[in-house]
C-alpha cells in the first residue's frame, strides 16, 4: 500500500543499544507493508553483539515500506522501515491519532495574551503548569475536564472544580491524621473500602504515610494535665452539646494567650496564624479517619462550635467534604475519649505544631480544697487532656502553660 501525498513518513532506524554498539542485525519483522501499527508496539526484533531486543514503533500509522530484510546487518542509524502517518494513511484507524483531531477553531483575538494553540498532545489542549500539577496529584485525566477559559481552555479553577465534583474518585486527601483509631462502632456503612489484593486501602496507606512522616519530621513530645469537668458537665447538660465543643472553645481561648501553639513549622519556616482554623479528627470507621477544618473557629461560640463539629462529622461520614474542608488547619483536636480510653499520645498533624487529645470523662475520687482551705475527698467528673507538641517549635514549659490555661478555662465555665 502506498502512502498518499498528505502522509508524513517516519523512519524506523537501527537503534544504538550501547555506547560501543555500531551495528545490528534484523532478526524478525513483526509487520508487513500495509499493516497498521501503533506507536510503541514492537515493530522489529534486532540483535547486536551486546543485546537482543525488540524495537518499538516510533509512530502510529501504516507500514509504508520495509527496507532492511531479515538477517541483514546494518549500521546504527540506518533506516530499516518507514511508517506513513497522516490523513492519507490508507488503513482505517482504530482511534484518532493523538493531537491530530480537529480541535475547536481558534479565533484570533486582539489580546496581547497568547492564545492556546492546538499543538498539545493531550486532548487537543495545552495545559498550564499548575493545571498539570493538580491533575497529576489527583490522578485526573484532563481530557475529561470541561474548560471554561478562553476557547475552552482548562483553567486552574476548572480542574479544582473537577476534583471537588468527582464523587466516584476517592479524593486523595493530603492530610495528616492525628492517631490510629480503634474503631469500636461501625461507621454508617459507606461503600466497602477499596481492597487492593487484600492490602491496605488507599486512605489507610496515606494515613500511615502521613503519620510516619510526622514522626520522622517533628520532635514529638506529649504532656498531660488532669481537668475537673464538673462545670463543663453541668453546662453541657444545660446546653445539650458535647464536651468537645467546650474543650474546643477553651483551647481557642488558650491559643489567644499562647499564640505560639497556633502555627505551622515547614522546614525552618515557622508561621504563626492569627486565625484559628480548627481541625477535628473524625473517624470513618474501617476507612480510616479524616480531619475536616472549621475555619475561623475563634469567631464561634460553644454552641456554634458544637453545631460545626456535628456538621463536619456528618459530612465526613457521608463523603460530602470538599478539598477546602480539609485544608488550612492551624490546630487540631482529637477526641477518642468518646470510646472510654483515658490517655493517648497523638501524632501531630503536619505542619501544625501541636495537637490536643480529649479522653473520656470519668468520675474519680479527688482531693478538693474548700474556700477555707479544708481538704476533703469528692467525686468529680475528671478527664485527662494530652497535648503532643513539636519540640522544634516550642518547649515543655509553654506546652504545660498552655494546658494549664485550658484547664483554668474549663474549670471556670459558667
Amino acid at each position, binding site marked *: 500500500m502506498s502512502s498518499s501525498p498528505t502522509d508524513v513518513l517516519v523512519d524506523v532506524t537501527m537503534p544504538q543499544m550501547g555506547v560501543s554498539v555500531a551495528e545490528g542485525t534484523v532478526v524478525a519483522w513483526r509487520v508487513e507493508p500495509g499493516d497498521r501499527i501503533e506507536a510503541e508496539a514492537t515493530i522489529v526484533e534486532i540483535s547486536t553483539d551486546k543485546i537482543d531486543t525488540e524495537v518499538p514503533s516510533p509512530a502510529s500509522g501504516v507500514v509504508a515500506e520495509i527496507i532492511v530484510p531479515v538477517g541483514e546487518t546494518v549500521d546504527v542509524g540506518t533506516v530499516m522501515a518507514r511508517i506513513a502517518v497522516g490523513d492519507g494513511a490508507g488503513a482505517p484507524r482504530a482511534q484518532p491519532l493523538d493531537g491530530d483531531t480537529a480541535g475547536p477553531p481558534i479565533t484570533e483575538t486582539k*489580546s*496581547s*495574551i*497568547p492564545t492556546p494553540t492546538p499543538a498539545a498532545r493531550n486532548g487537543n489542549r495545552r495545559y*498550564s*503548569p*499548575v*493545571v498539570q*500539577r493538580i491533575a497529576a496529584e489527583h490522578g485526573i485525566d484532563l481530557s475529561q475536564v470541561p474548560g471554561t*477559559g*478562553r476557547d475552552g*481552555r482548562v*483553567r*486552574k*479553577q476548572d480542574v479544582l472544580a473537577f476534583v471537588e465534583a468527582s464523587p466516584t474518585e476517592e479524593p486523595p486527601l493530603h492530610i495528616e491524621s492525628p492517631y490510629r483509631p480503634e474503631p469500636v462502632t461501625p461507621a454508617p456503612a459507606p461503600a466497602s473500602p477499596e481492597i487492593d489484593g487484600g492490602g491496605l486501602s488507599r486512605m489507610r496507606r496515606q494515613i500511615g504515610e502521613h503519620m510516619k512522616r510526622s514522626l520522622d519530621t517533628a520532635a514529638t513530645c506529649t504532656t498531660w494535665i488532669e481537668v475537673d469537668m464538673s462545670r463543663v458537665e453541668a453546662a453541657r447538660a444545660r446546653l445539650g452539646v458535647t464536651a468537645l465543643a467546650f474543650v474546643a472553645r477553651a483551647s481557642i481561648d488558650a491559643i489567644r494567650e499562647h499564640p505560639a501553639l497556633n502555627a505551622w513549622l515547614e522546614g525552618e519556616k515557622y508561621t504563626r496564624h492569627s486565625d484559628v482554623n480548627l481541625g477535628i479528627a473524625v473517624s470513618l470507621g474501617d476507612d480510616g479517619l479524616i480531619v475536616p477544618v472549621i475555619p475561623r473557629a475563634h469567631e464561634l461560640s460553644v454552641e456554634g462550635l458544637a453545631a460545626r463539629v456535628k456538621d463536619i462529622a456528618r459530612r465526613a461520614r457521608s463523603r460530602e467534604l470538599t478539598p477546602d474542608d480539609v485544608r488550612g488547619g492551624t490546630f487540631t483536636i482529637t477526641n477518642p475519649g468518646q470510646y472510654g480510653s483515658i490517655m493517648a499520645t497523638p501524632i501531630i498533624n503536619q505542619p501544625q505544631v501541636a495537637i490536643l487529645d480529649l479522653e473520656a470523662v470519668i468520675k474519680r475520687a479527688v482531693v478538693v480544697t474548700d474556700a477555707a482551705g479544708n481538704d476533703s475527698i469528692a467525686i468529680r467528673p475528671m478527664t485527662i487532656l494530652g497535648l503532643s507538641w513539636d519540640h522544634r517549635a516550642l518547649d515543655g514549659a509553654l506546652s504545660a502553660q498552655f494546658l494549664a490555661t485550658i484547664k483554668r478555662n474549663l474549670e471556670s465555665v459558667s
Partner: protein
Amino acid sequence: MPTLTYLQAISSALRDELRADDRVLLMGEDIGVFGGAFKVTDGFVDEFGTDRVMDTPLAESGIIGTAIGAAVVGMRPVCEMQFSDFISCGFDQLVNVAGKMHYRQGLAVPITVRLPSGGGFSGGPFHSQNPEAWFMHSPGIKVVAPSTAEDAKGLLHAAIRDPNPVCYMEHKHLYRRVKGDVPSGVFETPFTARVAQPGSDLVVIAYGAMVPVALEAVSDGLDGASVEVLDLRSLVPLDEEAILDSVERCSKVVIVDEANATCAAGAQVAALIAEKGFESLDGPVIRVATPDVPIPFSPPLEQAVLPGVDRVREACRELLAY
C-alpha cells in the same frame, strides 16, 4: 497617629534622622534656603543650619562623590537628586565607587540617594524617568520604592540606617496624592514586599506609583474576581519569597511598572517567576509597562505611554478569562 502626605512622611523621616543622629547630613541642589524643588526640606535650615542641609553646587557627580567621601569617614549623607533623571550625571560615582566599595575593600558606604522619579505631569523626557533598574543591575546598591505614606517614612529611616548605598525612589506623583496614618518617631520598614490587598484568582505585582494604580484597577470591573495586589517596596533586595508565595496562591500574574519595559524591575520579577514559580502558573505572565520610548511631554502622548488604571484592568480581565 498623625495623617501625613507621602511628601510630609519623607520630610518627617529626614527631620527625625537629623534630630536623632549628628552624622546625618542632607546634600542637594536648592534644598537649603529654598527648601527643595518639591519642598521636602522646607524650613529645615532654620532648625539644622546650612551645614547639615547643604545647598551644593550644581554637580550630581559631585554630590554623590563627596557623599561617599563623607560616608567613609563616618557621616550618613542623604543626597537629593532634584529629579531622579539627573542621577545619570552621578551614575559613575554611585555604580563604580559606592556600589563596589564594600566588595572590593570591605569599606561600607552608608549613603542614601533620594530620587524623585516618575511621570504623569508633562515633565517631559528629562523630568519623568524611572531609573531604578539601572541600579538593580549594579551590584552593591539597594533600591527601595515606597507607595504609601507609612512606607515612605519607614523605608527612608531604614535606608538612612542601612550601612550600604540605598537608592530611595520617591514617586513625584504620590507626593501630595497619597495620604495615610504614619506612626510618629523613628521606625524602620523592612526591605520586603507587602500584600496591599489579598486575593486568590490573580496577583498584580507593582511598586511605587503603580501600587495605587493597581489597587484602583482591581477595585471593580473584574466580575468580583479575587485579585491580590503585591507591593514590592524593595527592588534590591527583591522579596522572592513573597512574590513566589503570591504566585503559588494566585497562579495568574500581572506585573506593572512605570519604567520602560525592557530589563525593568518587572522584567526581573517575570524572570524570577518563570524560573522558580513555573509549576504554579495557570497562564502567561503579563507585563504592563511603559514602552521603550522617552517620556513625551504633551499630555495625550504621555498618557498614551504610561501605564494607567484602564490598561492594568484590561490586562487583568484578559488574564482572568484565560
